[in-house]
């Protein structure tokens, strides 16, 4: 089996987001960027499936500007075999990304496509589901456990009510929850080795996909600030305030 794993470069989850004063977005200059956290889980799972002898190749792909390639390089350092970077600048909506991924799937013919369930920048939670719609493949979203069977996966999904288990025939799309596994760290020798692994660069414009945004971002603003609270002197005062002032207990 061949597994394609999509990864996205986002602002690191530990960075305090700052909204640009002109309201056009958030500040990204000189801000630490990393791989979208659940995409790390997606790579880890693909590599584990390969290590268990159930996959022959893991291909990492990203869509975005030149620097997005760092996320593919990181995936190579933790066990992906080769990379693909589809170059595109500007805002890419999930619909556009899923159309690009569809073109790459047509060319690469993977048996499985993995990715994180949601990107922590736009919080859309759409790309995996859209790709499976375009391909008419089964989708297993929010996966917290994957068992590989003959040409099938049994996937446990995180749903509001608890857990749901489904069986999907390959080829299929899986979007990964943080609970799926513990992503490994890249060792220095593996980081060095990853530098020699190939990354194919493709221009989005060569794929014949219209990536222009459909949504207009009118403005981005800071959420309303909380008004400053008070410090209480002791537990008795705290409980009294919660009971009589805030009236929440």
């Amino acid at each position, binding site marked *: 089996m061949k597994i394609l794993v999509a990864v996205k470069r986002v*602002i690191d989850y*530990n*960075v305090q*987001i700052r909204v640009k004063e002109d309201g056009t977005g*958030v500040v990204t200059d000189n801000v630490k960027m990393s791989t979208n956290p659940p995409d790390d889980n997606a790579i880890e799972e693909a590599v584990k499936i390969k290590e268990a002898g159930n996959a022959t190749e893991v291909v990492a792909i990203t869509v975005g500007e030149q620097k997005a390639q760092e996320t593919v390089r990181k995936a190579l350092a933790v066990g992906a075999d080769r990379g693909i970077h589809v170059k595109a600048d500007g805002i890419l*909506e999930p619909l556009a990304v*899923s159309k690009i991924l569809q073109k790459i799937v047509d060319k690469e013919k993977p048996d499985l496509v993995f990715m994180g369930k949601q990107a*922590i*920048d736009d*919080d*859309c*939670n*759409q*790309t995996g*589901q*859209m790709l*499976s*719609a*375009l391909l008419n*493949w*089964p989708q297993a*979203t929010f996966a917290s456990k994957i068992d590989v069977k003959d040409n099938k996966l049994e996937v446990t999904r*995180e*749903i*509001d*009510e*608890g*857990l*749901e*288990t*489904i*069986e*999907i025939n390959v080829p299929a799309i899986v979007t990964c929850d*943080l*609970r799926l596994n513990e992503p490994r760290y890249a060792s220095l020798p593996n980081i060095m080795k990853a530098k020699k692994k190939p990354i194919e660069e493709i221009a989005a414009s060569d794929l014949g996909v219209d990536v222009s*945004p*459909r*949504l*207009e*971002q*009118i403005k*981005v*603003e*800071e*959420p309303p600030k*909380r008004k400053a*609270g*008070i*410090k*209480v002197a*002791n*537990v*008795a005062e*705290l*409980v009294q*305030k*919660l*009971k009589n002032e*805030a009236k929440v*207990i």
Partner: protein
Amino acid sequence: MAVLLIAEHNNKELRPFTLNAVTAASQIDSEVHAVIIGQNTAEATKQLSELPLIKKVLSVEAAHYENFTAENFTPVIVKLAENYTHIVCSANTFGKNLMPRIAAHLDTSQVSDIIKVISPNTFLRPIYAGNAFATIKSNDLKKCVTIRPTSFDPCETSGGSAPIEKIDADEEFSNTKFVKREEIKSDRPELGTARIVVSGGRGMQSGDNFKLITEIADKLGAAIGASRAAVDAGYISNDHQVGQTGKVVVPDLYIAIGISGAIQHLAGMKESKVIVAINKDGEAPIFSVADYGLEADLFEAIPQFMEELNKLNTIQK
């Protein structure tokens, strides 16, 4: 112009967030129709028809709809979409799983997880886990919108009598099979919808000490949360994690104990109505979002807190 709302239910009755989604749909346009897809849904369908904001109910029943598989639901809704300008449902795991599949078939760029309807084509939605709000205008002919349930009040549940129209079922998608659903049976409320959340952080120092959190949560009828640091340290399982990479919660009362208030944690709880922080470090960032801060050693403060709660005659549940 009319809005098609996708009802969420468990075949027997409507699930609560459907009511919040109806409210949001009615703010887009007053002509709201609801589609209910399932198996043996007579009672849930009746509940839907009684919502005063619903003008028409479309009912689709077949055995392969019993488990709400997105692959089976999608073709039904895509066909119905012809008659509507907007498709709306909740941005919980049901809607998150389903709506993008519909949107891709309609070649529409979905607007996810809105917290406000500004106009029929313009919406407010949080990005970066609520660290910024984006105003988004959709220029697509058909709009697929998911709504954050906690940002809209539930609609009225009685007094309506919308007509119910039966719609033919579509074919079954054979490559996805439902196996089982394990619903977490707990007396404790669900973290995502609890009225009160009590959370512990690295300051708890061990998994054993989380018993202190459990006691308070039991007393208040609260859900138990945790910071990523506490989860990473192995004090508690990660389904309790509150934050940008865990769950975003909006309870009436959030009590953060031994939590410093890392950015990624704040992103998951700072919209809570009332926030309490108990931490021995007076400079901890959690105090910047707390309505009531108590600078104290939590191992002294928690037993006192229990004592004070025990003194109260009544506690709201």
